């Protein structure tokens, strides 16, 4: 029996090719993402472990910053001397490292990485643990000398002797590059600028006595743990954060982790799509192979093979396919990881491909995924194969499985579909975001499952309509292609399902994102009253020097600043919520139209007051006049009184829960040192907006990180940021479509083989090759468009429900991107044409006589 299985596997290897490709793609993405994230985290673990000091003392950090405030927490550099006297300390150094500087060259162009990685300004204090070494020039001495890292220097063509301007929080200053440092380890992608310690203190921190950390080396024989305890005991464990080398490395890795996690999840998303779509392809392949081999299986049964043996034979074939696909997929995954590492190199993060880490988890996962998916996908067809009766050997060769009733599918599909629909209705009527979101998730999954199960039932009615005009347009060729698509609804349904899954996701995401864009547009139109908004594209704050220069610019009337601050509020209902608050200048009403449920801007921005979102206040039992204990970064606390409640579509999320804001004076009092995140600028009376824009742009010439935007530009900025999300979705779609195309090719190719005699007959009675190709092409198009229509219909419903859920968060506008939808339908027809190319060519090349005689 095994011999027969192997023979069969080898005999059908051509037909299994595309299934193997689907397995390969799924496994490649799984393996690639594992290898990549293992390699990257190993690299950075090593880097941080090797560069971290034995013990690091840093200012107490009480709140996480989800939105950058621009403030740099400092401690006194004198602590180094106190620490040095602690028993067991070999050396203690005051370190200065700031992340919020911008370095520009003499053409006013930023030399910072284009990837959004930070530019670090650091004091030059080399130890054996430094990640860099001086490779040319000399160490910086005095207030105008600096070192630059070699990768940035190379990228921006900066040489020793060149002048740079450093835009730091205390102000801009000019330096001369006196040396270049080169990474001895992996560069995580940042740009590095080194100054001598006094310069770093005065010009980066604005505090000649300040430091951002104290690094401590242990004397021989003293463990990091012991040292940490002693240092903490000396300085006061509550006043600072103390970390051993291990803890410091861990925390550094976690900082990078967010970014790496995103890449990992994106890759796993691709893998998931590949697996999901691949399953349909494999199910279809095995179903067709078994349908075509009905007589052969019947013969085996007639000769005495029992059901179990037949089933095992099919499953063994699946196992072989899974093994081959997984092995190739693993290899492809290694290639994919190498490619990603290269790509990271282009983005400035240099990891050596030779240091690639392939843990034992990777191959195990690859084989489990590859073989598992194939096995699961082949299980139903295998059962069907086992159900073939010995009589099939004697029956005429009319392909089995066509006429089997779809009753079970109808019932299961209807039940699951009804449950899914109920969940979706539930999420639309729900008033609580949390439960609405989980209902939405449930509804999406259930309706997708229902659509996959019931897909074959929809084949007849939908394709009757879609292909209804084929006979009129293409005569009998159109008629035959339409009916060929209807011939085996299961097969057509499963083939189209692959496309449906991808397009449903895209449909839903594009409705959601279009609605988001429209909501933001409306919100911007409603609330933004300023002539211009000045800010960094990434919402990174900028030095106050910029604000000063802007105020002095000709034609500028009013400038309203906004700053972010991480806070924690203790609410009357007992919740402690960490969020980000905004501070505004008192003239807020001049640049924004805020609708208040109670109170006004004056009450909101007065000293000791704050404003918050009405719904948030209601949920937590807050009223106007409530005193709210607020905790600021660094541990300062204050009781602020609620002065006003807002009633507007606040864009919550982004770590801005509650929509809390107060006067800038309040913020400066409790959390000093923040930089301005945005400036809202109105022209002085009689100033032409174009002139003002020109003057502002001239002022900002020296500050390339800050841009001038009017309302239209501001909307565009928001659109672009939403678009980034969409691009990701489109990339997922691209992969789904590739696999779906493979599925269509697969189905058509196997159908062509199955219909060899029919094709021979058609050719004999005078069907031209061109006509035959068109027939197959039309069938392919109608299958693809069927999948697209089903997917988009599902996606539209999902999108509508998503919008309804997000409306609870203030995203009230609904937009349906009809052009995208039309483009997708047309695109799917093109996909159909492309998928039909090879099968059609193959069919048209068949020898007529051989085809007629085909058994």
């Amino acid at each position: 029996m095994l011999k027969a299985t192997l023979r069969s596997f080898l005999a059908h290897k051509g037909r299994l090719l595309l299934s193997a490709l689907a397995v390969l793609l799924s496994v490649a993405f799984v393996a690639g993402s594992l290898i990549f994230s293992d390699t990257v985290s190993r690299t950075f673990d090593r880097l941080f472990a090797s560069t971290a000091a034995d013990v690091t003392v840093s200012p107490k950090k009480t709140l996480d910053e989800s939105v950058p405030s621009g403030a740099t927490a400092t401690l006194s550099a004198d602590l180094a001397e106190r620490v040095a006297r602690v028993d067991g300390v070999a050396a203690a150094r005051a370190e200065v490292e700031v992340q919020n500087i911008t370095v520009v060259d003499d053409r006013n162009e930023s030399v910072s990485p284009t990837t959004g990685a930070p530019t670090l300004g650091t004091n030059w204090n080399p130890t054996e643990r430094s990640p860099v070494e001086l490779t040319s020039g000399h160490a910086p001495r005095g207030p105008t000398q600096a070192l630059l890292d070699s990768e940035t220097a190379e990228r921006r063509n900066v040489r020793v002797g060149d002048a740079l301007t450093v835009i730091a929080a205390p102000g801009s200053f000019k330096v001369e590059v006196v040396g270049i440092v080169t990474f001895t380890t992996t560069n995580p992608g940042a740009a590095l600028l080194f100054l001598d310690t006094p310069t770093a203190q005065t010009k980066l921190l604005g505090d000649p006595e300040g430091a951002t950390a104290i690094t401590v080396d242990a004397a021989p024989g003293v463990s990091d743990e012991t040292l940490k305890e002693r240092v903490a005991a000396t300085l006061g464990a509550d006043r600072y954060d103390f970390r051993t080398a291990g803890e410091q490395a861990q925390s550094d890795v976690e900082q990078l982790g967010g970014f790496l996690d995103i890449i990992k999840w994106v890759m796993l998303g691709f893998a998931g799509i590949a697996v999901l779509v691949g399953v349909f392809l494999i199910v279809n392949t095995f179903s067709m192979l078994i349908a075509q081999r009905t007589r052969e299986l019947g013969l085996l049964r007639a000769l005495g093979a029992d059901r179990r043996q037949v089933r095992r034979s099919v499953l063994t074939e699946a196992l072989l396919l899974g093994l081959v696909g997984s092995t190739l997929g693993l290899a492809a995954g290694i290639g994919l990881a190498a490619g990603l590492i290269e790509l990271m190199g282009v983005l400035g993060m240099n990891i050596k491909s030779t240091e690639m880490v392939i843990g034992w988890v990777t191959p195990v996962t690859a084989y489990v995924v590859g073989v598992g998916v194939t096995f699961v996908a082949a299980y139903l067809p295998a059962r069907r194969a086992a159900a073939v009766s010995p009589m099939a050997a004697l029956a005429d060769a009319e392909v089995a499985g066509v006429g089997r009733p779809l009753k079970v599918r109808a019932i299961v599909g209807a039940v699951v579909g009804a449950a899914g629909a109920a969940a979706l209705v539930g999420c639309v009527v729900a008033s609580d975001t949390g439960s609405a979101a989980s209902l939405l998730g449930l509804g999406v999954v259930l309706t997708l499952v229902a659509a996959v199960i019931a897909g074959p039932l929809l084949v007849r009615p939908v394709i009757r309509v879609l292909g209804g005009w084929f006979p009129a347009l293409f005569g009998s060729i159109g008629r035959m292609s339409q009916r060929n698509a209807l011939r085996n609804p299961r097969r057509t349904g499963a083939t189209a399902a692959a496309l449906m899954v991808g397009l449903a996701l895209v449909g839903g995401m594009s409705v959601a994102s279009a609605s988001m864009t429209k909501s933001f547009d409306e919100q911007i139109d409603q609330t933004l009253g300023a002539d211009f908004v000045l800010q960094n594209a990434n919402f990174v704050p900028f030095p106050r020097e910029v604000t000063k220069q802007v105020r002095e610019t000709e034609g500028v009337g009013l400038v309203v600043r906004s700053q972010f601050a991480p806070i924690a509020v203790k609410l009357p209902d007992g919740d402690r919520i960490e969020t980000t608050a905004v501070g505004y200048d008192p003239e807020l009403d001049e640049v924004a139209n805020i609708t208040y449920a109670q109170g006004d801007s004056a009450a909101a921005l007065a000293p000791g007051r704050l404003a918050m979102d009405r719904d948030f206040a209601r949920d937590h039992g807050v009223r106007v006049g409530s005193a709210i204990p607020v905790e600021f970064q660094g541990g300062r606390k204050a009781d602020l009184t609620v002065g006003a409640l807002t009633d507007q579509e606040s864009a919550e999320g982004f770590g801005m829960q509650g929509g809390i804001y107060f006067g800038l004076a309040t913020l400066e009092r409790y959390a000093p040192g923040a930089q301005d995140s945005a400036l809202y600028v109105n022209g002085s009376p009689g100033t032409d907006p174009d002139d003002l824009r020109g003057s502002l742009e001239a002022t900002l010439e020296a500050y390339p990180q800050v841009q001038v935007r009017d309302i239209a530009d501001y909307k565009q900025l928001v659109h672009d940021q939403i678009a980034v999300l969409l691009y990701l979705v489109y990339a997922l779609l691209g992969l789904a479509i590739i696999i779906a195309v493979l599925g269509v090719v697969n189905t058509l190719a196997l159908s062509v083989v199955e219909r060899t005699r029919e094709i021979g007959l058609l050719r004999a009675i005078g069907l031209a090759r061109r006509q035959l190709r068109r027939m197959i092409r039309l069938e392919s198009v109608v299958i693809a468009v069927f999948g697209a229509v089903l997917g988009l219909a599902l996606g539209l419903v999902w999108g509508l429900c998503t919008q309804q859920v997000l409306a609870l968060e203030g995203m009230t506008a609904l937009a349906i991107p009809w052009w995208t939808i039309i483009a997708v339908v047309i695109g799917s027809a093109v996909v159909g044409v492309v998928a039909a190319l090879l099968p059609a060519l193959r069919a048209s090349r068949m020898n007529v006589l051989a085809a007629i005689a085909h058994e």
Partner: protein
Amino acid sequence: MSTPAAEHAPGLASADGVAARARGLTKAYGSGETAVLALDSVDVDIARGRFTAVMGPSGSGKSTLMHCLAGLDSVSSGQVWLGDTEITGLKERELTRLRRDRIGFMFQSFNLIPTLNALENITLPMDIAGQRPDQKWLDQVIDTLGLRDRLRHRPSQLSGGQQQRVACARALASRPELIFADEPTGNLDSRAGLEVLGFLREAVDGLGQTVVMVTHDPGAAAHSDLVLFLGDGRLVDEMARPTAEAVLERMKRFDVIRRQHDDGAPAQGD
């Protein structure tokens, strides 16, 4: 290439006209030393308005002859004409159009497209050509074959005999110059087979068509006007106004020759 239907209306075809002609028709499979001759320099005329049967033992080349005459297979040498058109040397595309417009086919089995109903199958060659069928003629063919109440049925809903009648109707529907029938009764029981043979006879007598039928059944051949006997790729005999007994007798002599010939004679499976 004009539509043949206009050139010879039923009844006008003279019995002495030639519907198809082959001269020196040779078909070899393989090449060089191992070449096998399926047809060896065959000269044949197919009379217009007649029912011609081609007989011969297995491997005699009778199917190959039909395929070459119908433009389904290429020839190694020699010439073939359909009417006045020399089809040897025609390009693939021209051959396809020739088959579509001027030839009708009936095969032993799998004659119909399963997705099309009987009427759609009957008019398929004309639909492919983008021509409207001649409704009067179509009605006549359908009534002759007794398919009127089966037109909306799919092939799977028809019996074997009915399927062959539909195939026969399709072959007749475009009023081709020549109808080739390759063992049309091979898969039928004797009653249904007789019925189909009766229709082919009627197509010649009543509708004035020309039919060439390949068969190995002497009983079937007895329905024809003329039987051509093929042996080892050569035309060895012919018999006008055949009877089943006479054909059977003639066929027995092949067996004798074959036995004398030992196994050395070239044989090509058909």
